Protein backbone atom coordinates (compact mmCIF):
# COMPACT_ATOMS: atom_id res chain seq x y z
CA UNK A 1 0.00 0.00 0.00
CA UNK A 2 1.24 3.53 -0.65
CA UNK A 3 2.92 5.45 2.16
CA UNK A 4 0.46 8.32 2.11
CA UNK A 5 -3.11 7.25 1.53
CA UNK A 6 -4.63 9.37 -1.22
CA UNK A 7 -7.31 11.44 0.43
CA UNK A 8 -10.50 9.76 -0.61
CA UNK A 9 -13.13 12.07 -2.00
CA UNK A 10 -16.67 11.00 -1.36
CA UNK A 11 -20.14 12.38 -1.54
CA UNK A 12 -20.44 13.91 1.92
CA UNK A 13 -24.21 13.55 1.91
CA UNK A 14 -24.06 9.78 1.39
CA UNK A 15 -24.10 8.23 4.88
CA UNK A 16 -22.84 4.81 3.81
CA UNK A 17 -19.97 6.21 1.74
CA UNK A 18 -18.98 8.56 4.58
CA UNK A 19 -18.93 5.71 7.12
CA UNK A 20 -16.79 3.60 4.76
CA UNK A 21 -14.40 6.49 4.18
CA UNK A 22 -13.93 7.19 7.90
CA UNK A 23 -13.59 3.44 8.60
CA UNK A 24 -10.83 3.26 6.00
CA UNK A 25 -9.09 6.30 7.54
CA UNK A 26 -9.18 4.69 10.97
CA UNK A 27 -7.73 1.49 9.54
CA UNK A 28 -4.89 3.58 8.07
CA UNK A 29 -4.20 5.14 11.47
CA UNK A 30 -4.13 1.83 13.31
CA UNK A 31 -1.80 0.17 10.85
CA UNK A 32 0.25 3.30 10.15
CA UNK A 33 0.76 5.70 13.04
CA UNK A 34 -0.02 3.22 15.78
CA UNK A 35 1.99 0.46 14.13
CA UNK A 36 -0.48 -2.36 14.81
CA UNK A 37 -0.68 -5.40 12.59
CA UNK A 38 -4.05 -6.01 10.95
CA UNK A 39 -5.61 -9.43 11.53
CA UNK A 40 -7.84 -10.70 8.74
CA UNK A 41 -9.27 -13.73 10.52
CA UNK A 42 -12.78 -12.28 10.89
CA UNK A 43 -13.05 -11.13 7.28
CA UNK A 44 -11.54 -14.38 6.01
CA UNK A 45 -14.20 -16.31 7.90
CA UNK A 46 -16.92 -14.42 6.08
CA UNK A 47 -15.19 -14.82 2.70
CA UNK A 48 -14.86 -18.56 3.33
CA UNK A 49 -18.58 -18.95 4.08
CA UNK A 50 -19.51 -17.00 0.95
CA UNK A 51 -17.11 -18.99 -1.20
CA UNK A 52 -18.50 -22.26 0.20
CA UNK A 53 -22.07 -21.22 -0.61
CA UNK A 54 -21.16 -20.23 -4.16
CA UNK A 55 -19.25 -23.51 -4.50
CA UNK A 56 -22.31 -25.53 -3.47
CA UNK A 57 -24.42 -23.67 -6.04
CA UNK A 58 -21.86 -24.25 -8.80
CA UNK A 59 -21.67 -27.94 -7.90
CA UNK A 60 -25.46 -28.23 -8.17
CA UNK A 61 -25.36 -26.46 -11.54
CA UNK A 62 -22.67 -28.77 -12.86
CA UNK A 63 -24.34 -31.95 -11.60
CA UNK A 64 -27.69 -30.99 -13.06
CA UNK A 65 -26.01 -30.21 -16.39
CA UNK A 66 -24.30 -33.61 -16.52
CA UNK A 67 -27.28 -35.65 -15.27
CA UNK A 68 -30.51 -33.90 -16.36
CA UNK A 69 -33.31 -33.33 -13.98
CA UNK A 70 -35.03 -36.43 -12.75
CA UNK A 71 -31.73 -38.22 -12.00
CA UNK A 72 -30.20 -35.20 -10.26
CA UNK A 73 -33.14 -34.82 -7.88
CA UNK A 74 -31.35 -36.09 -4.76
CA UNK A 75 -28.20 -34.06 -5.33
CA UNK A 76 -30.30 -30.96 -5.99
CA UNK A 77 -32.25 -31.39 -2.75
CA UNK A 78 -29.01 -31.69 -0.79
CA UNK A 79 -27.40 -28.69 -2.50
CA UNK A 80 -30.41 -26.41 -2.20
CA UNK A 81 -30.92 -27.14 1.50
CA UNK A 82 -27.21 -26.80 2.29
CA UNK A 83 -27.11 -23.53 0.36
CA UNK A 84 -29.89 -22.01 2.42
CA UNK A 85 -28.44 -23.38 5.65
CA UNK A 86 -25.11 -21.74 4.74
CA UNK A 87 -26.96 -18.47 4.07
CA UNK A 88 -28.46 -18.73 7.55
CA UNK A 89 -25.06 -19.38 9.11
CA UNK A 90 -23.60 -16.44 7.18
CA UNK A 91 -26.32 -14.12 8.44
CA UNK A 92 -25.75 -15.28 12.01
CA UNK A 93 -22.00 -14.81 11.54
CA UNK A 94 -22.27 -11.23 10.28
CA UNK A 95 -24.86 -10.28 12.89
CA UNK A 96 -23.33 -11.81 15.98
CA UNK A 97 -19.67 -12.42 15.34
CA UNK A 98 -18.76 -9.47 13.12
CA UNK A 99 -21.19 -6.91 14.53
CA UNK A 100 -19.97 -3.96 12.47
CA UNK A 101 -16.29 -4.55 13.29
CA UNK A 102 -14.26 -3.22 10.41
CA UNK A 103 -10.71 -3.64 11.65
CA UNK A 104 -8.99 -6.03 14.03
CA UNK A 105 -5.37 -5.16 14.82
CA UNK A 106 -2.80 -6.90 17.00
CA UNK A 107 0.02 -5.21 18.83
CA UNK A 108 2.87 -6.54 20.94
CA UNK A 109 3.74 -4.46 24.01
CA UNK A 110 6.43 -6.03 26.14
CA UNK A 111 5.30 -9.64 26.58
CA UNK A 112 1.66 -8.66 26.21
CA UNK A 113 -0.29 -9.05 23.01
CA UNK A 114 -3.13 -6.60 22.68
CA UNK A 115 -6.01 -7.06 20.29
CA UNK A 116 -7.81 -3.91 19.16
CA UNK A 117 -11.25 -4.15 17.57
CA UNK A 118 -12.89 -1.11 16.05
CA UNK A 119 -16.52 -1.16 15.04
CA UNK A 120 -18.76 1.61 13.90
CA UNK A 121 -22.34 2.27 12.96
CA UNK A 122 -24.36 5.15 11.61
CA UNK A 123 -28.08 5.58 11.85
CA UNK A 124 -29.97 6.30 8.67
CA UNK A 125 -30.19 10.01 7.81
CA UNK A 126 -28.21 10.88 10.93
CA UNK A 127 -24.86 12.62 10.65
CA UNK A 128 -23.46 11.08 13.83
CA UNK A 129 -20.66 8.58 13.41
CA UNK A 130 -20.55 6.13 16.34
CA UNK A 131 -17.22 4.47 16.97
CA UNK A 132 -16.52 1.76 19.54
CA UNK A 133 -12.99 0.55 20.22
CA UNK A 134 -12.44 -2.55 22.35
CA UNK A 135 -9.04 -3.61 23.62
CA UNK A 136 -8.29 -7.10 24.92
CA UNK A 137 -4.88 -8.08 26.20
CA UNK A 138 -3.36 -11.38 27.30
CA UNK A 139 -3.62 -10.39 30.98
CA UNK A 140 -7.38 -10.77 30.66
CA UNK A 141 -8.14 -7.05 30.64
CA UNK A 142 -10.90 -5.85 28.38
CA UNK A 143 -11.43 -2.15 27.93
CA UNK A 144 -13.86 -0.32 25.74
CA UNK A 145 -14.21 3.28 24.66
CA UNK A 146 -16.78 4.85 22.40
CA UNK A 147 -16.97 8.15 20.62
CA UNK A 148 -19.96 9.67 18.90
CA UNK A 149 -19.25 12.65 16.71
CA UNK A 150 -20.81 14.21 13.69
CA UNK A 151 -19.14 13.46 10.35
CA UNK A 152 -18.47 17.17 10.07
CA UNK A 153 -15.55 16.70 12.46
CA UNK A 154 -13.74 14.35 10.11
CA UNK A 155 -14.84 15.29 6.62
CA UNK A 156 -14.19 18.69 5.14
CA UNK A 157 -16.51 20.71 2.98
CA UNK A 158 -15.23 19.06 -0.25
CA UNK A 159 -15.94 15.54 0.95
CA UNK A 160 -12.32 14.65 1.72
CA UNK A 161 -11.50 12.82 4.92
CA UNK A 162 -9.02 14.87 6.94
CA UNK A 163 -6.54 12.20 7.99
CA UNK A 164 -4.91 14.29 10.74
CA UNK A 165 -8.09 14.85 12.70
CA UNK A 166 -8.95 11.16 12.50
CA UNK A 167 -5.42 10.29 13.59
CA UNK A 168 -5.60 12.60 16.63
CA UNK A 169 -8.95 11.22 17.69
CA UNK A 170 -7.83 7.59 17.44
CA UNK A 171 -4.50 8.24 19.13
CA UNK A 172 -6.35 9.89 22.03
CA UNK A 173 -8.54 6.80 22.43
CA UNK A 174 -5.53 4.52 22.07
CA UNK A 175 -3.69 6.23 24.89
CA UNK A 176 -6.68 6.37 27.20
CA UNK A 177 -7.26 2.64 26.73
CA UNK A 178 -3.57 1.72 26.96
CA UNK A 179 -2.99 3.51 30.24
CA UNK A 180 -4.10 1.87 33.45
CA UNK A 181 -7.03 4.26 33.84
CA UNK A 182 -10.12 2.17 34.47
CA UNK A 183 -13.12 2.89 32.21
CA UNK A 184 -16.61 2.99 33.76
Amino acid sequence: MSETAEAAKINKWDGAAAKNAVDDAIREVMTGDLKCKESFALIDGRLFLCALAVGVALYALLWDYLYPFPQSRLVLIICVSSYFILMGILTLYTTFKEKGIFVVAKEKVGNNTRVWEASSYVKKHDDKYNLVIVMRDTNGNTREASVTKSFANFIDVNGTVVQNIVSNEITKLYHSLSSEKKEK
Partner: protein
Amino acid sequence: MLESLFDDVRRMNKRQFMYQVLSFGMIVSSALMIWKGLMVVTGSESPIVVVLSGSMEPAFHRGDLLFLTNYPEEPVRVGEIVVFKVEGRDIPIVHRVLKLHEKNNGTVKFLTKGDNNSVDDRGLYAQGQLWLTKKDVVGRARGFLPYVGMVTIYMNEYPKFKFAVLACLAIYVLVHRE
Protein backbone atom coordinates in the same frame (compact mmCIF):
# COMPACT_ATOMS: atom_id res chain seq x y z
CA MET B 1 -20.23 9.68 -12.43
CA LEU B 2 -18.69 6.67 -14.11
CA GLU B 3 -15.31 7.72 -12.72
CA SER B 4 -16.57 7.91 -9.15
CA LEU B 5 -17.81 4.33 -9.56
CA PHE B 6 -14.36 3.12 -10.54
CA ASP B 7 -12.71 5.26 -7.86
CA ASP B 8 -14.53 3.15 -5.29
CA VAL B 9 -13.18 -0.03 -6.84
CA ARG B 10 -9.61 1.24 -6.97
CA ARG B 11 -9.72 2.12 -3.29
CA MET B 12 -10.84 -1.38 -2.31
CA ASN B 13 -8.12 -3.66 -1.07
CA LYS B 14 -7.86 -7.26 -2.21
CA ARG B 15 -10.21 -8.67 0.40
CA GLN B 16 -12.92 -6.08 -0.14
CA PHE B 17 -12.78 -6.73 -3.86
CA MET B 18 -13.06 -10.48 -3.27
CA TYR B 19 -16.10 -9.80 -1.12
CA GLN B 20 -17.72 -7.74 -3.89
CA VAL B 21 -17.15 -10.56 -6.38
CA LEU B 22 -18.51 -13.15 -3.94
CA SER B 23 -21.56 -10.96 -3.20
CA PHE B 24 -22.31 -10.92 -6.91
CA GLY B 25 -21.76 -14.69 -7.00
CA MET B 26 -24.15 -15.15 -4.11
CA ILE B 27 -26.92 -13.17 -5.75
CA VAL B 28 -26.61 -15.30 -8.89
CA SER B 29 -26.37 -18.45 -6.77
CA SER B 30 -29.45 -17.54 -4.75
CA ALA B 31 -31.50 -17.13 -7.92
CA LEU B 32 -30.11 -20.42 -9.22
CA MET B 33 -30.86 -22.27 -5.98
CA ILE B 34 -34.41 -20.92 -5.84
CA TRP B 35 -34.96 -22.15 -9.40
CA LYS B 36 -33.50 -25.60 -8.66
CA GLY B 37 -35.52 -25.71 -5.43
CA LEU B 38 -38.69 -25.04 -7.43
CA MET B 39 -37.70 -27.78 -9.85
CA VAL B 40 -37.42 -30.27 -7.00
CA VAL B 41 -40.65 -29.17 -5.27
CA THR B 42 -42.82 -29.25 -8.38
CA GLY B 43 -41.13 -32.26 -9.97
CA SER B 44 -40.94 -30.44 -13.30
CA GLU B 45 -37.73 -29.62 -15.15
CA SER B 46 -39.10 -26.18 -15.99
CA PRO B 47 -41.57 -25.11 -13.32
CA ILE B 48 -42.27 -21.69 -14.84
CA VAL B 49 -42.81 -21.22 -18.59
CA VAL B 50 -43.88 -18.36 -20.82
CA VAL B 51 -46.63 -18.85 -23.39
CA LEU B 52 -45.01 -18.06 -26.73
CA SER B 53 -47.87 -18.23 -29.20
CA GLY B 54 -51.55 -17.47 -29.42
CA SER B 55 -52.56 -21.09 -29.99
CA MET B 56 -54.37 -21.31 -26.64
CA GLU B 57 -56.48 -18.18 -26.85
CA PRO B 58 -58.75 -17.16 -25.22
CA ALA B 59 -57.45 -19.13 -22.21
CA PHE B 60 -53.80 -18.07 -22.46
CA HIS B 61 -52.26 -15.26 -24.46
CA ARG B 62 -48.73 -14.72 -25.68
CA GLY B 63 -46.69 -13.44 -22.77
CA ASP B 64 -48.56 -15.17 -19.94
CA LEU B 65 -46.54 -16.88 -17.25
CA LEU B 66 -47.53 -20.46 -16.34
CA PHE B 67 -46.79 -22.42 -13.15
CA LEU B 68 -46.36 -26.14 -13.70
CA THR B 69 -46.24 -29.28 -11.61
CA ASN B 70 -45.26 -32.74 -12.73
CA TYR B 71 -46.02 -35.20 -9.95
CA PRO B 72 -45.68 -38.83 -11.08
CA GLU B 73 -48.69 -39.91 -8.96
CA GLU B 74 -51.09 -37.59 -10.79
CA PRO B 75 -52.27 -39.04 -14.10
CA VAL B 76 -52.79 -36.93 -17.21
CA ARG B 77 -56.48 -36.53 -18.03
CA VAL B 78 -58.36 -35.37 -21.10
CA GLY B 79 -59.16 -31.68 -20.97
CA GLU B 80 -56.07 -30.75 -18.93
CA ILE B 81 -53.56 -28.27 -20.25
CA VAL B 82 -50.10 -29.78 -20.54
CA VAL B 83 -46.74 -28.34 -21.49
CA PHE B 84 -44.65 -30.75 -23.54
CA LYS B 85 -41.47 -30.79 -25.56
CA VAL B 86 -41.22 -32.62 -28.85
CA GLU B 87 -38.16 -34.83 -29.09
CA GLY B 88 -35.34 -32.98 -30.77
CA ARG B 89 -36.83 -29.53 -30.23
CA ASP B 90 -36.26 -27.26 -27.27
CA ILE B 91 -39.36 -25.12 -27.33
CA PRO B 92 -42.07 -26.08 -24.82
CA ILE B 93 -45.58 -26.17 -26.28
CA VAL B 94 -48.67 -25.41 -24.21
CA HIS B 95 -51.77 -27.28 -25.48
CA ARG B 96 -54.79 -29.21 -24.24
CA VAL B 97 -55.14 -33.01 -24.11
CA LEU B 98 -57.71 -34.24 -26.62
CA LYS B 99 -57.59 -38.04 -26.56
CA LEU B 100 -55.98 -40.49 -24.20
CA HIS B 101 -55.25 -44.24 -24.23
CA GLU B 102 -54.32 -45.87 -20.95
CA LYS B 103 -53.13 -49.42 -20.27
CA ASN B 104 -53.64 -51.32 -17.03
CA ASN B 105 -50.01 -50.92 -16.07
CA GLY B 106 -50.35 -47.16 -16.20
CA THR B 107 -48.61 -46.33 -19.50
CA VAL B 108 -50.48 -43.63 -21.37
CA LYS B 109 -50.38 -42.14 -24.79
CA PHE B 110 -52.27 -38.98 -25.63
CA LEU B 111 -53.02 -36.50 -28.36
CA THR B 112 -53.01 -32.73 -27.93
CA LYS B 113 -54.43 -29.71 -29.73
CA GLY B 114 -54.25 -25.98 -29.19
CA ASP B 115 -57.64 -24.40 -28.42
CA ASN B 116 -57.10 -21.79 -31.10
CA ASN B 117 -55.75 -24.20 -33.73
CA SER B 118 -57.95 -25.90 -36.29
CA VAL B 119 -55.97 -29.18 -36.39
CA ASP B 120 -54.49 -31.43 -33.75
CA ASP B 121 -50.78 -31.48 -32.99
CA ARG B 122 -49.78 -34.52 -35.07
CA GLY B 123 -48.12 -32.09 -37.47
CA LEU B 124 -45.90 -30.84 -34.64
CA TYR B 125 -44.77 -34.20 -33.34
CA ALA B 126 -41.55 -35.87 -34.49
CA GLN B 127 -41.42 -37.77 -37.78
CA GLY B 128 -43.60 -40.87 -37.44
CA GLN B 129 -44.77 -40.01 -33.93
CA LEU B 130 -48.57 -40.11 -33.52
CA TRP B 131 -48.92 -39.90 -29.76
CA LEU B 132 -47.22 -38.23 -26.81
CA THR B 133 -46.12 -40.13 -23.72
CA LYS B 134 -45.49 -39.17 -20.11
CA LYS B 135 -41.80 -38.60 -20.74
CA ASP B 136 -42.50 -35.80 -23.23
CA VAL B 137 -44.45 -33.88 -20.62
CA VAL B 138 -42.73 -31.00 -18.83
CA GLY B 139 -45.68 -30.41 -16.52
CA ARG B 140 -49.33 -29.58 -16.11
CA ALA B 141 -50.49 -25.99 -15.83
CA ARG B 142 -51.62 -25.17 -12.31
CA GLY B 143 -51.79 -21.40 -12.28
CA PHE B 144 -50.91 -18.39 -14.37
CA LEU B 145 -49.99 -14.72 -14.32
CA PRO B 146 -51.02 -12.61 -17.31
CA TYR B 147 -48.55 -10.40 -19.25
CA VAL B 148 -45.61 -10.95 -16.88
CA GLY B 149 -43.79 -13.13 -19.39
CA MET B 150 -43.60 -10.37 -22.01
CA VAL B 151 -40.29 -9.24 -20.48
CA THR B 152 -38.76 -12.64 -21.29
CA ILE B 153 -40.10 -12.50 -24.83
CA TYR B 154 -38.58 -9.05 -25.41
CA MET B 155 -35.26 -10.12 -23.95
CA ASN B 156 -35.13 -13.10 -26.29
CA GLU B 157 -36.12 -11.13 -29.35
CA TYR B 158 -33.74 -8.27 -28.64
CA PRO B 159 -30.64 -9.92 -27.18
CA LYS B 160 -28.85 -6.55 -26.92
CA PHE B 161 -31.49 -5.38 -24.45
CA LYS B 162 -30.98 -8.48 -22.31
CA PHE B 163 -27.21 -8.01 -22.41
CA ALA B 164 -27.50 -4.32 -21.45
CA VAL B 165 -29.79 -5.01 -18.47
CA LEU B 166 -27.61 -7.83 -17.14
CA ALA B 167 -24.41 -5.82 -17.62
CA CYS B 168 -25.82 -2.84 -15.69
CA LEU B 169 -26.96 -5.07 -12.82
CA ALA B 170 -23.58 -6.80 -12.67
CA ILE B 171 -21.63 -3.53 -12.64
CA TYR B 172 -23.88 -2.07 -9.95
CA VAL B 173 -23.42 -5.03 -7.62
CA LEU B 174 -19.68 -5.33 -8.20
CA VAL B 175 -18.95 -1.67 -7.54
CA HIS B 176 -21.40 -0.70 -4.82
CA ARG B 177 -19.90 -1.23 -1.37
CA GLU B 178 -22.22 -2.84 1.15
